[in-house]
């Protein structure tokens, strides 16, 4: 997996909450048996008008966001299905970072990302950053003021520096396990197989309750 250390590039805004995986990659693109070729399918339907032509209103279609590598969105991004194809589409369209807000609504925390999407992201070198809503609003405002604005995301320092009218730095929190995995670009399977002996000894005393195999 490609390690994530520090990235610099354009930030594209997608001002929508609860963006589900069916929007990120519509189902007709899940039939591929390959791991590549998903970049063009990102937000396939949202990118297009009813007649099939590209919608110039959709941010990802706009010239100043063309080479964006950072996407800023609203809460609960990636909800819905477990399809890792959604993360493949985001990554293969050139993105390295997605930023979303955690909100507090009626005393409950509304998460930035859906669980499975976040878990799939780290396995593909995609950094998902959770920020308080006020900070995310600041990023949206900065892009409105300077469309095509760039930012630098430094995972080691846990900072986002917005290069708008003036430089502003926002610090973010990330759990140490996810950070370590991304920084080192670790292969989970190889790491787990280092514990093969322990898995074998666990299996020796563990009952899977599987009693039969059909003929």
């Amino acid at each position, binding site marked *: 997996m490609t390690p994530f250390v520090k990235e610099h590039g354009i930030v594209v805004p997608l001002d929508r909450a*609860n963006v589900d995986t069916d929007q990120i990659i519509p189902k007709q693109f899940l039939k591929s048996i390959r791991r590549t070729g998903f970049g063009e399918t990102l937000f396939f339907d949202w990118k297009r008008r009813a007649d099939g032509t590209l919608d110039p209103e959709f941010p990802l279609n706009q010239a100043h966001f063309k080479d964006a590598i950072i996407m800023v969105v609203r809460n609960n991004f990636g*909800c819905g299905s477990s399809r*890792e194809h959604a993360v493949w589409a985001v990554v293969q369209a050139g993105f390295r970072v997605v930023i979303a807000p955690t909100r507090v609504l009626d005393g409950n925390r*509304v998460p930035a990302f859906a669980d499975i999407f976040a878990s799939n992201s780290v*396995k593909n070198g995609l950094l998902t950053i959770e920020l308080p809503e006020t900070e995310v609003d600041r990023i949206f405002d900065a892009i409105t003021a300077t469309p095509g604005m760039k930012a630098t995301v430094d995972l080691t320092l846990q900072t986002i520096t917005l290069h708008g009218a003036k430089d502003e730095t926002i610090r973010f929190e990330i759990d140490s396990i996810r950070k370590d995995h991304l920084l080192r670009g670790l292969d989970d*399977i190889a790491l787990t197989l280092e514990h093969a002996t322990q898995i074998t000894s*666990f299996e020796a005393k563990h009952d*899977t309750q599987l009693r039969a195999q059909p003929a």
Partner: protein
Amino acid sequence: MAKTLFQKIWDRHVAKELADGTVLLYIDRHLIHEVTSAQAFEGLRLAGRPVRRPELTVATMDHNVPTEAKERKNIADAISRAQIEMLEKNCKDFGVTLYGLDSERQGIVHIIGPELGLTLPGTTIVCGDSHTSTHGAFGTLAFGIGTSEVEHVLATQTLRQTKPGTFRVDFMGRLRPGVTAKDMILKLIGTIGTSGGTGSVLEYTGEAVRALSMEERMTVCNMSIEGGARAGMIAPDDTTFDYVSRGERPFAPRGAALDQAIAYWKTLPSDPDAAFDRTITIDVDKLAPQVTWGTNPGMVMDVTERVPEPGSVPGYSRVDVEKALDYMGLTPGTPLTDVPVNVVFIGSCTNGRIEDLRRAAMVMSGRQVAKGVQVLVVPGSESVRKQAEAENLDKIFKAAGCEWRFAGCSMCLGMNPDQLKNQQRSASTSNRNFEGRQGKGGRTHLVSPEMAAAAAIAGHFVDFREWK
């Protein structure tokens, strides 16, 4: 120390605690299907890794299989066909048991797991599909995973996991006639929102849950993911043991082994004083049939209500609601019972089991589908189809004007030819009303099988409690 059901299963499956605070969680059953497994097997081939315990993985094909007889023999869509053939090849090469299109027990992965006796209390089950939460109905820790994790399980029979939180959902009271398990889970999602359960494993408790059949419990657990929770569980009891003990379930224990297993399963329910991180109580006494009006399952209301005004829906911004209503083609203030439907879909891993079909057939019996309404009835598995045909349910559906199909995911996600056309409106017993889910431009309303069948007859939504 007092433990929850989840904690008991978790503790028994920690194969190794890792230095970073995560664990290697042992996986007892791994279910795979054609859509999310191909790239995982490709990864194994590239790294030269074998499947560690092929006998613990079981495969079927469900997502993109055609549901019409002639198409099943000869799949017209070359890309769909290639994906199905790849699964056949992978299962053969790696020694995995496959219930393919030629099998009498093929079906939706979450329907055949329980049918085959693969789903047992106290076990861990994963699958590259978010509706794996279904199996939690048995007191099983079951959750959906991505393809990288599918590969990880194939190679190691474990997953690296951070322990989730616990969230108890207590359904008190008694369901009124015409109100169902589907309405319970839709009400919960409407209450906590589509991310209310994120980071948690739900445990459903309370007298209303205890009163549910196994199939109804599966409907509840199935949609845990629509509330953001990867898993939802129900403590096993006599209803569970009875289900596992009955029928042709080749993977389930029998005889002395079953008695021994049941003795263990009886130790699984949460201890009375076990603590949960969060608890919510929902009273089902006055619960009405639920209908979704928007573009996610949390956008749901009683069938007696009217399409909401933007700015009046807790948890959603004015813009969220405006966009949803615009997509759905709905005007605020319209009574839901005035909303007409073009297509009715009865099936899916949420509501494609035999009890669902029986209840829908009861509504349809001796009646005719409204003019211009297309109705697809898609059994969740070939076993369900055969059982339904043995009970002549297929004849009832066909006499009413429905199409009777073979098993698969079908119009729940429209990866096969069963899709909504632009601006067609459906009453669907499935689990997601996302934009385009059932077909580009299609408008989905999630309901129970009874509500779907009644909408098919009436041509619009009706309050099933008043159905004569």
